[in-house]
């Protein structure tokens, strides 16, 4: 009987470890941003997930969505958003790209370039560390906030 309890506790611990997407203490939180000129005010985690996983191309404001990945924050973003590693995200997109279903988000190298691109592109949506979000963009979702 005790063995069964130990096994159940171990399984529960494994599941908790696997499904928690909490961010590390001390990290500047990642935020999802759109242009400051956009009428969009906020988004839910599900809406952000649908846009960045290529499932949906329309922002809640009705505009066509143009998502972009930031090379420096990409691994952390997908780990916190859907609990996936870069390898899993790469495999996920391989399925969509090579079945001809859709194309992946724009790839941008740095947060500064991300901010510039979001400001200049109607419908653009991307993610940056909170500290990098300035007056040119509007924060519509903060990762990890729902877990706090």
């Amino acid at each position, binding site marked *: 009987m005790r063995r069964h309890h130990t096994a159940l506790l171990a399984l529960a611990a494994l599941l908790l470890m696997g499904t928690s997407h909490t961010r590390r203490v001390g990290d500047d939180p990642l935020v999802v941003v759109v242009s400051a000129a956009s009428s969009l005010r906020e988004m*839910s985690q*599900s809406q952000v997930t649908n846009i960045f996983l290529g499932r*949906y191309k329309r922002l809640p404001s009705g505009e066509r969505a143009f998502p972009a990945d930031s090379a420096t924050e990409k691994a952390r973003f997908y780990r916190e958003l*859907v609990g996936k590693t870069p390898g899993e995200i790469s*495999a996920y997109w391989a*399925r969509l790209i*090579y*079945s001809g279903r859709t*194309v992946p988000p724009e790839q941008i190298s740095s947060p500064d370039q991300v901010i510039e691109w979001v400001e200049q592109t109607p419908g653009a949506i991307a993610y940056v560390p909170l500290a990098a979000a300035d007056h040119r963009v509007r924060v519509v979702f903060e990762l990890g906030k729902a877990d706090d």
Partner: protein
Amino acid sequence: MPDRASACRHFMIACALALASSFALAEGFSLRPGLFGTLGVNWHANDDLSYRRSAAQYGGARGGTLDASVDSLLGVQLNARFTDALDAVGQVVARQQPNGGWHPQTTLAFVRVEPAPGLQLRFGRLGLDSVPGADSRLVGYALPTIRPVPEVFAALSVDFIDGADITYRFDRGDNLFQLKAYTGEHDSRTYIDGAPFDLYDIRSTGVTASWFRDGWEARVGAGTGKFLDNGDSQLLVDLLASLPLPSSVAAARALDSTGARSHFHHLELHYDEGPWDLLAGYVRLINPRRTPHLPRQRMFHAQAAYRMGRFTPYLTWARIRTEAARLDTGLAGSPPFALLDSFAQAWLQAAQFNQRTLSAGVRFDLRPGIALKAQVDRIVAGRSVILLDERNFDSTARRTTLFSLALDFAF
């Protein structure tokens, strides 16, 4: 009829490519090349058996030898983006064909138009997006396993259709819904009982409805395949019809696929979030006209994968059951015509696929874009289209354990 259908398909593809090229000089034009493939080897101990992953493959992995022909393939793709709402995709894949050759085959060639966010139309050669994974089955890197479960995909030798589809997505709160309809024609080449066959030209039409929320996806769908001709079995049908025996004429009518319809419906539930990747599905194939060589089939499949760092161990289980079929040509006891009866019975038996497979394996992600996999399959078959006997005929009542290694990549 096959020539006309083929000409129509090529005309459609040409129109799609011409339309695409006319936009090639538009502002914002970009090209994105891609490469994917698998280098795979298989081994099993049964000297009198060959293993193949699909009925469209020639030969297979012989027992006691390492074979690299079953899972290996190479694909190249070019995405051309003309505007935000218009792009085109071309894809060519080299893999083992039913005649044993490795000549490249065009697997995608379409133009995509998005007149509004959430609405997408595609024209040309498209991946057959019926059951989940059907349109990406060749992309090993995208799968947790080395290959899709054979019980669902081995007999379905159709990868693409020449036609059109329309997809509409909309959200309600956190729930995202997708409605999709597709129609198109395809031929079906396979390798049966030691010879390559052109099966039938088929027009497939179907609808699917999907729901997404966070890591969850549920899909239901239904479709119809209308058989436009008899392919290489036309000679058999003609010979049976020419004999002055009511039973052989009735058998010819039963084997005549022209105009017959085969319906299928399916249901899948997929959870893919965090380290878990769980999938379960059910597919059912029915033929209202009860044509004996297009029997009813039921397929069940389930998959569980759990990522631990760069390792992802997985388990899959799948089963296919096919309704037994009988055909009385009245020729079995007539020596001059017994050979004709044996051909007819062989044609019937080629559609019989009763098998279950339990697979266990592990995926190791070397880096994004490259994965190494090892897999063991325990296959138990009543009659199988993927286990061939020494004559390269479908085997009956066999069991084997298959060991596989694969290096998958996608860039």
